[in-house]
C-alpha cells in the first residue's frame, strides 16, 4: 500500500472549521480531472488489484502526468490520478476499477488491461467494452448502477466503501466526514444525541438487535466513572466479512460513530476489539486513528470544545467466543476469554466494572448517517421494527459473491436472485443459512420472507451479524448441520457442560447419520439435547448453537430420514450413502470416465460400456462431471 504522509491542513480548533476543510478537500480531489479508483479490499488484493494500481500509476506517469495526490493540495490541476479504495462489494468480479467522474465500471481487470483502459479514457474518451460487466443477455453495463448487483441495493453505510481512499482522512472529509460530529458538538446536547438515536429505531447490528438508543440512554444515566465505548470488531462467523470490509473501506465512519457515542453517553475512553487475523483492517484502523488524532478529532479538547475522548485498538487472538460481550470484556481485562453470567447491565457494570457501551462496527457506522440525515429520515427506511439498512456478505453457491447492503425488509428472493444473480449454472436453490454458525437454514418457501430481525427469528434463524450462505441442491443439510456443530464445538470455551459436551454428543450423532448408521430415534434425541443445550448454556454461543440442527430438522426432516431409513444421501455428499453407476443406455463408450478416474475404479475398453468397480471408487464424482452424455449417476 502506498505510504503517504498526510499534509496537515491544521488541527481543527472549532467545529465550524469542518465545513472549510470539507470544501478544501473536495476542491483538492476535484483537481484530478480523472481518477482511476482501484479496489483494495481483501478479495481484490488477492486477485492482484495492487499490481493493477501500480501499473496504472506507472503508465500515467510515463505520459508525463503528475499522479501524486499530495501535490494536489498545492499545485494546479492534473489530468489524471490513481487511487485505491476499500471494498466495492462485487468481490466475485474483482479486481475492480472505476473511472471517475464518469463512473465507468471495469471488472476482472488484469495488469495487461491497463494500457487499454488508459488509452480509452485519456485518448479516445471511450470505454474498454470487454472489461465492462456482461449481462446474461450479452449486453454490457457501463456504470455500477446498471449492474443488477448494485441496482437492487441501498448502499448507505457502505456508501463510502469503494468510493474513498480509506487511508487518507481528507477523502472522508470530502464526503461530509465529521460533519455529524461537528453538529453534535455545537447544536446538540448529549441527551439530544441519545434521543435522536432512539428515535431512529436503530437496533444493534451485531446480531442481538437490541435498540442502540436505549442502550445509550442507560449508559448516559449510569453513575459510574469513567465510562467506556467498545466497538466489537471480533467478527468470526464462517463466510462473514461485513465488519472487516467496513473497517477496511471506511474506518473513519466507524471512528466518528464511536466519538459521537462517547459524546452522547459521556465516555472518555474507547476500545476497538478487532481480530488480529484481519491485518489490513488493523493497519487501516491504526492509520485512521492516528490521522483523526492529528486533526484534533481524538484526544483532549476535541475540536476545541473541551470534550475528551480517545480510542485504543485491542487485537483479539482469534477465539470466536470473544465476540460474546462478557468474554470480550474479560479478554480486554487480561482474563481468559470466557463468558460470565450477566445479571448487571454492561451499561452499569461493564469493562472494569464501569459503565460500558458495546456496539458492533456496523452499528457505529450508522450513527453519523442518522445524525446527518435525521432520525425521521432514517426511520423511514426498513420495516416497522427494524429500521434502516443491513449489510450482508453473500457467499456459497451464488453467482455474485460479495458485500451488499439492502433496506431492511428486502426479501430473500431479491437478495439471492436479483442482487446475488441466483445460483450458478441455474441449479435449483435449496437453502440459505443466515446468522452464521448459530443461525438457521431456511428453505425455498421462505424466499419471499422480508428480511428483518423479527421475521428471521420467527422462522427459526436469526439476523446474526449478516452472513448469508446460499446452498444449491448439491448441499446436504445433514452435512451442513454437522459442519456448524463442529465449528461451535471447536469454538466453545468449554465452561458449560451443555455447550462443550452437548455439542460433542450432537456431533457424534450427526457423524453417525452421515456414515449411514443413523437410527430413527436419533431425531428425537437430538431435539431433546438441543432444547437442553439452549436452556442450560450460559452465553449466546451455547444457547444458539442448536439452531442449525433444529432448523434443518424442521425444514428438511425428509432428508434426515432418507439418510437414516433409506441409507441414501440425496445430495450425494455423504460418501457411505450413495454410489456412482454407469447408465448403460446413455453410455457412448468414449472412455472419458476411464481416463479421468483417479483411483482406477472404471473398467472400459474401446467399444464397450464402462463399468464402475465400487470397491475401488472413492466417490470423487469426476466421472459424472466429465461425462458428456449424462451416463453416470
Amino acid at each position: 500500500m502506498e505510504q503517504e504522509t498526510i499534509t496537515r491542513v491544521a488541527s481543527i480548533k472549532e467545529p465550524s472549521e469542518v465545513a472549510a476543510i470539507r470544501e478544501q478537500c473536495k476542491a483538492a480531489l476535484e483537481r484530478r480531472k480523472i481518477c482511476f479508483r482501484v479496489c483494495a479490499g481483501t478479495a481484490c488484493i488477492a486477485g492482484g488489484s495492487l499490481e493493477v494500481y501500480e501499473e496504472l500509476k506507472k503508465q500515467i506517469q510515463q505520459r508525463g502526468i503528475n499522479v501524486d495526490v499530495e501535490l494536489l493540495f498545492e499545485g494546479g490541476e492534473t489530468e489524471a490520478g490513481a487511487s485505491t479504495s476499500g471494498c466495492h462489494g462485487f468481490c466475485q468480479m474483482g479486481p475492480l476499477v472505476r473511472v471517475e467522474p464518469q463512473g465507468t465500471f471495469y471488472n476482472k481487470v488484469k495488469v495487461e488491461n491497463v494500457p487499454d483502459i488508459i488509452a480509452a479514457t485519456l485518448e479516445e474518451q471511450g470505454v474498454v467494452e470487454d472489461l465492462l460487466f456482461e449481462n446474461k443477455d450479452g449486453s454490457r453495463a457501463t456504470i455500477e448502477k446498471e449492474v443488477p448487483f448494485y441496482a437492487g441495493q441501498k448502499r448507505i453505510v457502505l456508501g463510502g466503501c469503494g468510493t474513498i481512499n480509506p487511508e487518507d482522512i481528507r477523502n472522508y472529509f470530502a464526503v461530509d466526514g465529521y460533519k455529524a460530529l461537528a453538529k453534535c458538538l455545537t447544536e446538540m446536547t448529549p441527551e439530544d444525541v441519545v434521543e435522536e438515536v432512539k428515535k431512529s429505531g436503530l437496533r444493534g447490528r451485531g446480531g442481538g438487535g437490541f435498540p442502540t438508543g436505549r442502550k445509550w440512554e442507560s449508559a448516559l444515566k449510569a453513575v459510574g466513572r469513567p465510562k467506556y465505548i467498545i466497538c466489537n470488531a471480533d467478527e468470526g462467523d464462517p463466510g462473514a466479512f461485513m465488519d472487516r470490509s467496513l473497517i477496511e473501506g471506511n474506518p473513519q465512519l466507524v471512528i466518528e460513530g464511536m466519538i459521537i457515542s462517547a459524546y452522547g453517553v459521556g465516555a472518555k475512553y474507547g476500545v476497538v476489539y478487532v481480530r488480529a487475523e484481519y491485518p489490513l483492517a488493523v493497519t487501516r484502523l491504526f492509520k485512521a486513528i492516528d490521522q483523526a488524532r492529528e486533526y484534533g478529532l481524538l484526544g483532549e479538547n476535541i475540536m476545541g470544545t473541551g470534550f475528551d475522548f480517545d480510542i485504543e485498538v485491542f487485537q483479539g487472538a482469534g477465539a470466536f467466543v470473544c465476540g460474546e460481550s462478557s468474554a470480550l470484556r474479560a479478554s480486554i481485562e487480561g482474563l481468559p476469554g470466557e463468558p460470565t453470567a450477566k445479571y448487571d447491565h454492561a451499561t452499569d457494570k461493564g469493562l472494569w466494572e464501569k459503565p460500558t457501551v458495546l456496539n458492533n462496527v456496523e452499528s457505529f457506522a450508522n450513527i453519523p448517517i442518522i445524525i446527518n440525515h435525521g432520525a425521521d429520515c432514517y426511520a423511514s427506511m426498513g420495516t416497522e421494527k427494524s429500521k434502516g439498512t443491513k449489510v450482508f456478505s453473500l457467499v456459497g453457491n451464488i453467482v455474485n459473491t460479495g458485500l451488499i447492503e439492502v433496506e431492511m425488509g428486502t426479501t430473500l428472493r431479491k437478495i439471492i436472485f436479483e442482487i446475488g444473480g441466483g445460483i450458478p449454472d441455474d441449479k435449483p436453490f435449496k437453502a440459505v443459512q443466515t446468522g452464521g454458525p448459530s443461525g438457521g437454514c431456511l428453505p425455498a418457501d421462505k424466499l419471499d420472507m422480508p428480511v428483518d430481525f423479527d421475521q428471521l427469528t420467527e422462522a427459526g434463524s436469526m439476523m446474526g451479524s449478516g452472513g448469508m450462505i446460499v446452498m444449491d441442491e448439491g448441499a446436504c443439510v445433514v452435512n451442513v448441520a454437522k459442519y456448524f456443530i463442529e465449528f461451535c464445538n471447536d469454538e466453545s470455551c468449554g465452561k458449560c457442560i451443555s455447550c462443550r459436551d452437548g455439542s460433542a454428543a450432537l456431533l457424534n450423532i450427526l457423524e453417525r447419520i452421515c456414515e449411514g448408521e443413523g437410527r430413527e430415534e436419533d431425531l428425537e434425541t437430538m431435539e431433546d439435547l438441543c432444547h437442553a443445550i439452549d436452556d442450560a448454556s450460559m452465553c449466546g454461543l451455547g444457547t444458539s448453537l442448536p439452531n442449525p440442527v433444529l432448523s434443518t430438522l424442521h425444514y428438511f426432516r425428509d432428508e434426515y430420514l432418507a439418510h437414516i431409513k433409506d441409507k441414501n444421501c440425496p445430495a450425494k455428499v455423504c460418501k457411505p450413502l450413495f454410489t456412482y453407476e454407469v447408465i448403460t443406455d446413455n453410455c457412448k463408450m468414449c472412455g472419458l470416465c476411464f481416463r479421468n478416474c483417479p483411483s482406477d475404479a472404471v473398467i472400459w475398453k474401446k467399444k464397450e460400456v464402462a463399468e464402475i468397480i465400487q470397491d475401488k471408487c472413492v466417490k470423487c464424482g469426476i466421472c459424472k462431471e466429465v461425462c458428456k452424455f449424462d451416463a453416470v449417476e
Partner: protein
Amino acid sequence: MVTFTLNGTELEVKEGTTLLEVARDQGIEIPTLCYHEEMSTYGACRLCLVEVVRRDWPSIQPACLYPAREGIEVNTDTERVRKSRKILLELYLARSPESQVIIDLAKEYGIRDTRFKLKESERSECILCGLCVRACAEISKRHAISFAHRGSKRMIQTPFEELADTCVGCQACAFVCPTGVIKIDEAD
C-alpha cells in the same frame, strides 16, 4: 432487602443473595457439582438450573449465580427444569461413565443409561467443574493449576504442563474434587 417467591412461598432476603443460598436455607434440594460455599461461584456444571419468571418472561437460570431479585417467581422443580437436568446427567454419564458420584446422582433422577456418546478423548472422570482451580487460587492462594485449551479439549493443567513450582502439596484440590479424580502421590 428484596421480596420474591420461591416454590410458591413469598420470601424476603438480603439483596445479592443467590437463589441457591436461599433454597438451601429453606431446605430445598438443588443438585450441584461445581459449587462450594467457601469459594466463589462459577456456574459450569449447570445442574442447579431453576425456572425464573421475571417480568412475565420465564427462563432457565443457574441458581448458584442468579441473585434473588424483587418480584421474581422461582420454581426449582418444574417439568422444564427436570428435563434439562436429566439430559445434563445423561451428558455427565457419557463423559464420566465410571464415576460413582455421577452414577449415583443420575440414579436419583431415574437415569441409568445415556443416549449420548463421546469420543475416548472427550471422556474423563474430570467434569471440569473448576473447584480445584478455585481452591488452589482462593484457599491455598498458590495458582498452581488452571484451565487450558477450549471446547472438548479443555482440561485442568499446571502452567505449561510442567510441574508447578508454586504447588506446596496442600491437597486442597483433591479434597474439593467432587469425582475424586485428583490423586495424591505421597512420595512426591
